[in-house]
């Protein structure tokens, strides 16, 4: 298992380099102009100078290598300097700068990350915690009323996109319910809100409810279906009959024998979904005005902000490759029949 992990980690290096090249080329080939959002009164020769200063006119390969150097060599050193207070001599080097805001891309990401982690991360957690019991009970009582309801909710979660369900809950909880009611919820997520005492915590909780639940509906739909299918697979296995014949309590049969075996594929699905937390939920963040990574990416795409788009998408790529590896390793740990070495 250890050598497998090491081998896979080494293999990720060429994979990621290739991904970064493809991403860079695609982003560069898109017909967007970093000066396109600037006022029309700026004369063309000034625009050209701005482009020059941004380094857009250099050959693609040079730009790519420069980006590589900044991302893999400069930014990690700056990260170390910030975390440990060392001096690695990075002060006079040019950082990865966002075309739009003229501030380092990494700083933007670090600013946006907590918002995304709070909303999307909590939604993922809540969604999973709701999904597992629903999946288990639905499978154990297949075709019961509970199962049918679970199927219905999952179908809704699968088929109703967040730009609809998000707006729907805003209409219900922010517009139709009077704002002095106990059930009223704020439709805009206030990113500057700080939790200092009980009252501010309650406000934070209230403003998180809608975006979290809209996202959790989708996550629940997916994971509960998966859990149910996996449980059903295992419930009819012979070893479950053996467990019953042993005279085990029904609870032990279901929770120890069936559930443990059913969780093998479910855990990997959950692990594979984790990168999407960091990717943010682009649409949901837009609907509820959460200033997260998803929103940063959308704005950067609209503004032709190549360094930001490139860096963000590449970070998502790293996470996806990494969590694929984690899912594989988890599979090997959970299922004794699978050995990688």
């Amino acid at each position, binding site marked *: 298992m250890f050598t497998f992990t090491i081998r896979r980690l080494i293999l990720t290096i060429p994979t990621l380099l290739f991904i970064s090249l493809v991403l860079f080329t695609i982003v560069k080939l898109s017909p967007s102009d970093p000066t396109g959002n600037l006022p029309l009164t700026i004369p063309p020769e000034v625009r050209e100078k701005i482009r020059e200063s941004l380094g857009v006119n250099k050959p693609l390969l040079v730009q790519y290598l420069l980006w590589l150097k900044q991302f893999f060599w400069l930014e990690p050193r700056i990260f170390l300097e910030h975390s440990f207070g060392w001096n690695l001599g990075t002060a006079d080097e040019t950082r990865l700068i966002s075309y739009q805001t003229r501030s380092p891309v990494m700083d933007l990401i670090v600013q946006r990350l907590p918002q995304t982690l709070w909303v999307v991360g909590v939604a993922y957690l809540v969604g999973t915690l709701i999904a597992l019991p629903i999946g288990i009970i639905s499978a154990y009582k297949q*075709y019961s009323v509970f199962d049918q309801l679970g199927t219905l909710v999952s179908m809704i979660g699968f088929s109703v996109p967040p730009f609809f369900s998000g707006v729907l809950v805003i209409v219900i909880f922010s517009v139709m319910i009077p704002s002095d009611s106990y059930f009223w919820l704020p439709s805009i997520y206030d990113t500057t809100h700080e939790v200092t005492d009980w009252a501010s915590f309650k406000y934070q909780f209230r403003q998180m409810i809608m975006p979290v639940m809209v996202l959790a509906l989708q996550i629940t739909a997916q994971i509960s279906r998966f859990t149910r299918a996996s449980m059903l697979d295992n419930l009819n*296995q*012979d*070893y479950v*009959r*053996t*467990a*019953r*014949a*042993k*005279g*085990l*309590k*029904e609870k*032990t049969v279901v929770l120890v*024998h069936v559930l*443990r*075996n059913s969780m093998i594929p479910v855990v990997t699905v959950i692990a594979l979904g984790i990168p999407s937390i960091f990717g943010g939920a682009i649409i949901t963040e837009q609907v509820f005005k959460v200033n997260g990574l998803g929103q940063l990416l959308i704005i950067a795409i609209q503004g032709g902000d190549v360094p930001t788009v490139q860096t963000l998408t590449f970070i998502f790529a790293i996470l996806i490759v990494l969590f694929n590896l984690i899912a594989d390793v988890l599979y090997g740990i*959970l*299922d*004794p*029949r699978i050995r990688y070495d």
Partner: protein
Amino acid sequence: MLDEPKQPLVRVDNLKMHFPIFGGLLRRRIGQVKAVDGISFDIIEGETLGLVGESGCGKSTVGRSVLRLYEVTDGTVTIDGRDIAHAPPEELRQMRTQMQMIFQDPQASLNPRMKVSEIIAEPLREHHAGTAAERRQRVLELMDQVGLNRDFANRYPHEFSGGQRQRIGIARALALNPKFIVCDEPIAALDVSIQAQVVNLLEELQNELGLTYLFISHDLSMVRHIADRVAVMYLGRIVELAPRDALYDDPLHPYTKALLSAVPEPDPAIEEKVERIILTGDVPSPSNPPQGCNFCTRCPAVMDICKRDEPEFREVQPSRFVACHHFNDIT
């Protein structure tokens, strides 16, 4: 059976196991598969009752419903004086220490995520007090008893061969010192060379521990080897039940005759002369059995009454039971 001093350990009376068929738009119940349709037999303590029949005749269903791994439709099953078929769940769970099952597929019937020692120790943990060390000791004893190397205790089931896995299944069944074990085709999934080993192991354990077996198999020669009495099933019913030698030497029911004539003869000289009774037609569907005798559609000696009335399962000679109209006048 008056001269038989021992009491029956297992008494099955009019056991019925019908599985519903759902269909149509609203998944309503549109019929039922009569997998087991009113069978009765006793098993005396310490004996082996063989249960034979062709595929799909309900052998395994009998085994599972006797241990109430299915909720039976009707009838009673009494094991060691206690009614299994209608016991409340918690009581039933306690009774499971007395009755165990060895399953057909040794690969699928062992939890792939548990080590051998955990598989064998689990019933001990569930039903007996005792420390982890005591359980460990018992697990190792059991592994010795079924001929498994003690060093394998921490391996997973997939790391064993088929015969070894079946030994794990047997050790697991023995863990609670049961009196009655249902062997549901325990050798069907094994190589011929391993079959003999496992059957011999089962016999040895029976002699040592005084076990009572219900041995389900479609292998007639293996049943002849291990069973004291044999019951022959056809389409959810027992057609003949008799002591082994009597049944094999002089089968009474036409189905038993046909079944036994199909057993291959090892001597080629005799094999050539064997007259086989070839049954024509297919087994009727258990969801729609024929009127009268279940065997009337294929019976070479069918009479008019067979298509009208169900034959009674009755004792036609001492300790020989047959369900056939041909024997109604004999007694």
